[in-house]
Structures are given as structure tokens and as C-alpha cells.
């Protein structure tokens, strides 16, 4: 399934409530916005109203953090129902989630937690992705997570490589992929693999969206452990990974994430113009893969 629906999306920004007015009024070409749907799954009031105002002026993507697709339990039915209602209401350009878990039984853990990539885990994630796609009546894009734990430690080990796991997930479910190049950089640094090799092996045809963000060193463990903190500008190495992927596969919607030390809207716009430049450069060099 080619990600054709999103070809009009250029460099987008994670939408921050304090930037609502500027976001609504900005007319930058290719601009779009992404939100965590969890913050908008409410019955009514100002949050939904504002999101609809933004949607009236810009494409909007929903980037979920709590479906717990790699969890042992099926997706929370009530949550999925609310998400489906928001998708119907907003008609988002993209819907995405993470290759991670965040719930056991009725308890939510507000993080994107790691699991051992086994064949059983692949079957479980594929089942959950299919359930979500059936309920939403559209494909969702699955994001590669940041890793902090080694591939093998005691009885902890992965029987599947992450890129192979994601490629197989695409095969089995028809899902799309969200390539977070900052997560690739963070994980490659922490686990000692080649970020370039990971990017080169990534199934480019399935990538519907790319994330860029800043990272920082762990406050206790230091520069040996990078944290996907979203609280700093995008590192040069991360821009280089974006360029590497786009040079190979052509432009895709790129989203700049920022959650901590959030600067002014114009500063974020300026930063995301690097992504717009990379997309424009390769749009000229390489014809679009698919024309709707």
C-alpha cells in the first residue's frame, strides 16, 4: 500500500497548545500539524474546538502513544472507540502508533516500553495492528522506538532484528511505517549499531512519515546513554539520516517533535525549514514514486 494520501504534506510541526494562534494563521507551504490523540479524546470543550479550528486550516496527523500494540492485552476497546470517533471527526492525513507497550491489564504506564522481539510477539503485534486498522478503517503507521537496553542481557534477547520485524509486520497487516530518524540515532548510539546501515535496510516503500527530534545525554549515566528527550534542537547527525533516507527513497512528510524547553513557534518553523530544504532538494533530484 503506497502512502499516496500524504504526498501534499511537507515539513510539519508537533502542535503545542501555546502555539495555537500562530499555528492556525501560518501559511507556510506544505505545513501540517501532529497531535497525540490522547489529549483530545474528550467529550467536548476548548481542546476539541481548537483542534477543529487547526484542522480547518491545515492537514492534521494523529500520533498515538497509548494503544500498547506490543502489549499482551488487546487494544483497550473503549479507547479504540474514542479514537475511531476522533478519526471520523477530523479525517486526519495520517494515523500512527509505536512499536511498544504501555499497559498491563487496566493499568497504563505513560511511556513506550520495550519487549523481546520474538515470533510470538510479532503475531501479537500483527493481531493488534489489524484490530486497530479494522476499527479505524484505514492503515496506521508504526514507529520504530528508541532503545536503552542491550539486545541481550541475562535471559533478555531478541530473536528478530527490528527492521526485519517491522518489514514482516507490513507484510502481514498492510500497515505503514513511521521512521523516527532520531530514535535510530539514539538507539544506534546506545546499542552500538550503524545508524546508516539501519536506514539503508529500512523498507522505504512503506514509510508514510518521518520524525525528527532532539535528544540529550542521560542525567545520571552521561553521554554513554542518549535519551529521546525531545527537549533540544535536532542534532546534525539526525538531519544527515533524514537526508540519507530521502535521497534514497524520495520525499515523505517530515514532522519535527518538541516536548521540552519548547521555543517560540517561529523558532520551530525555522528549525523545520531544514527538513523542507531537504525535501525540496530531493523532490527536484528524484521524481515522486507515486502520483495519485
Amino acid at each position, binding site marked *: 500500500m503506497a502512502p499516496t494520501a500524504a504526498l501534499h504534506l511537507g515539513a510539519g510541526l508537533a502542535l503545542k497548545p501555546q502555539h495555537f494562534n500562530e499555528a492556525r494563521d501560518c501559511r507556510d507551504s506544505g505545513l501540517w500539524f501532529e497531535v497525540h490523540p*490522547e*489529549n483530545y*479524546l*474528550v*467529550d*467536548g*470543550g*476548548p*481542546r476539541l*474546538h481548537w483542534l477543529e479550528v487547526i484542522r480547518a486550516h491545515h492537514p492534521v496527523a494523529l500520533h498515538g*502513544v*497509548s*494503544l500498547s500494540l506490543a*502489549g*499482551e492485552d488487546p487494544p*483497550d476497546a473503549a*479507547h479504540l472507540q474514542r479514537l475511531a470517533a476522533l478519526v471520523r471527526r477530523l479525517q486526519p492525513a495520517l494515523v500512527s502508533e509505536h512499536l511498544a*507497550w*504501555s*499497559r*498491563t*491489564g*487496566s*493499568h*497504563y*504506564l*505513560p*511511556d513506550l*516500553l*520495550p*519487549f*523481546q522481539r520474538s515470533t510470538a510477539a510479532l503475531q501479537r503485534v500483527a493481531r493488534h495492528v489489524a484490530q486497530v486498522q479494522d476499527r479505524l478503517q484505514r492503515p496506521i503507521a508504526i514507529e520504530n522506538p528508541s532503545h*536503552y*537496553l*542491550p539486545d541481550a*542481557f*541475562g*535471559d*533478555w534477547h531478541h530473536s528478530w532484528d527490528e527492521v526485519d520485524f517491522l518489514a514482516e509486520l507490513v507484510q502481514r497487516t498492510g500497515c505503514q511505517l513511521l521512521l523516527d530518524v532520531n530514535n535510530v540515532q539514539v538507539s544506534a548510539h*546506545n546499542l552500538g549499531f550503524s545508524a546508516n546501515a539501519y536506514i539503508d535496510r529500512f523498507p522505504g516503500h512503506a514509510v508514510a512519515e518521518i520524525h525528527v527530534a532532539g535528544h540529550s545525554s*542521560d542525567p*545520571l*549515566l552521561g553521554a554513554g*546513554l542518549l*535519551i529521546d528527550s525531545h527537549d533540544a534542537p535536532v542534532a546534525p547527525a539526525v538531519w544527515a539520516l533524514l537526508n540519507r533516507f530521502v535521497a534514497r527513497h524520495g520525499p515523505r512528510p517530515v514532522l519535527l517533535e518538541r516536548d521540552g524547553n519548547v521555543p517560540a513557534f517561529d523558532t520551530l518553523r525555522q528549525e523545520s525549514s531544514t527538513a523542507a530544504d531537504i525535501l525540496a532538494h530531493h523532490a527536484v533530484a528524484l521524481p515522486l514514486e507515486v502520483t495519485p
Partner: protein
Amino acid sequence: MSVNTPLHALAQAIWSEAPADEAPAITRHPAFAVYRNTVLKGCVDALQANYPAVARLVGDDWFQSAATLYARAHPPVDGRLVLYGADFADFLARMEATHQLPYLAPVARLDRMWTLSHVAADAPPALPQHITSLPAEALATLKLAPHPAAQWAWFDGIPARTLWCSNRSDAHPEADPQPPGDLVWRGEGALLTRPALQVQWAPASLGSICFLDACAQGAPLLDAAQAASEAEPGLDLAQLMAQLLDAGALQVPN
């Protein structure tokens, strides 16, 4: 719910202060702390965002220790963290450390009422003409429902509303002008509504709180008015109706 699965073991190690002897080896890897810290910080930050007046009253250090205790005892049961902390006011009331701070749980309750008003369903508020256009004989049996975004409470013996609004950075002094310096230790009521998509609040008398309680239970106007007058002898019902309609506290009658 099975509790012996691999992910349950990881979750237990995240929620517990120190991993148990039988916890998986990976939970003792130094980098596993990243997950434990992120999960707890996510819960504490959500509580701080949802209970800003409590946090301002007790200070960051005290708040964060109380929030950490709460998070371990009451993990989120919903992916929507704006709703996290439904039992936080009760939890504070039960804490031994708050026995000298009897106003803390009521202030937490008002923070929660703000959140519930903020996320409530949209509905057109009743206007004066919705009531005045009705024939006189219909008024006694008319059932008025509170607006979905209306929240109201009476705090016996505690000036909770005054304390709360002087610790909300989004307070509008003109709406509730009592200066904090003049704190009088007596009961107070609060009515929160959301006209024009913004939560606002005002003082509410015991009679108006009883009136809204009766309306919420489906009582007809005559019974609700009687309940209000019994709670507050001498209550001016016409003025009460005008206040409630002006605040957008009622729904358009069917």
C-alpha cells in the same frame, strides 16, 4: 487478568521502589531506570498539571513526593492523562501529613472540578427566554438539567474556593474579588461553568448548591426551589435563577 506474564513482571519492576529478587534480570540493568523514571515522571507531571492549585499551595518537593506515593498506589487506568488523579483529593484527605492542612483535599477537589468542566460535552446553555417563554403552569413541573460543563460544590467550614482561586494562575480576580488577605474561616460554595469555551468560576451560596443538586437528581423546578429555600431561608429565587442562567449553568429545557 494474568499477573505472571513477562510484561507484567517488567511493569511490577517499574512500579515498585526496588525490583524484587524474582524480577527479570533486565530490570537490574542500569538503563532500565530510564523506563522507571519516565513512567513515574509521566504520572507526577500529569498530577501537577491537573492539580496546579494543590502544587502551588504545598510547593514542588512536597507535591512530587505525594504524587509519587499516589502514582505507585493508583496507576493510571486511562490513556488520557488529563483525567488522571480521580482519587487524588481522597488520597490527600487520608494522608497523615495533611491532617494539619484540612483545606488541601477541598482545593484538590476544585482542581478536579476545573478539569471535568474543561473536558465536558458541549451543549447550548439555557437563556432567560427559554424560561420566560414558558406558560406559568409549566414552570412548577419544569425539569432543568445542569449544563454538562457545570460543576458545583459546598465546602463546609472551609473557605476552599477563596484558597483555590488565589492559587490558580488562570484566576480572574474580577469574577471572584475576595482578596486572599481577608480570608474568613467559614464554609464556601463554588460554581464552575464554561461559557465561551473557557472555564470560569464564581461564589455559590448553599441554597444554589442545593438547587443544582436537586436539578441534577431530576427534581422539578418547584421541588428544587423548595430544597434551596430550606437550605438557605430568605433565598431570592429569581436572583438565583438569573445568576445560574447568566453563568451558563443550565441546559436548554426539553
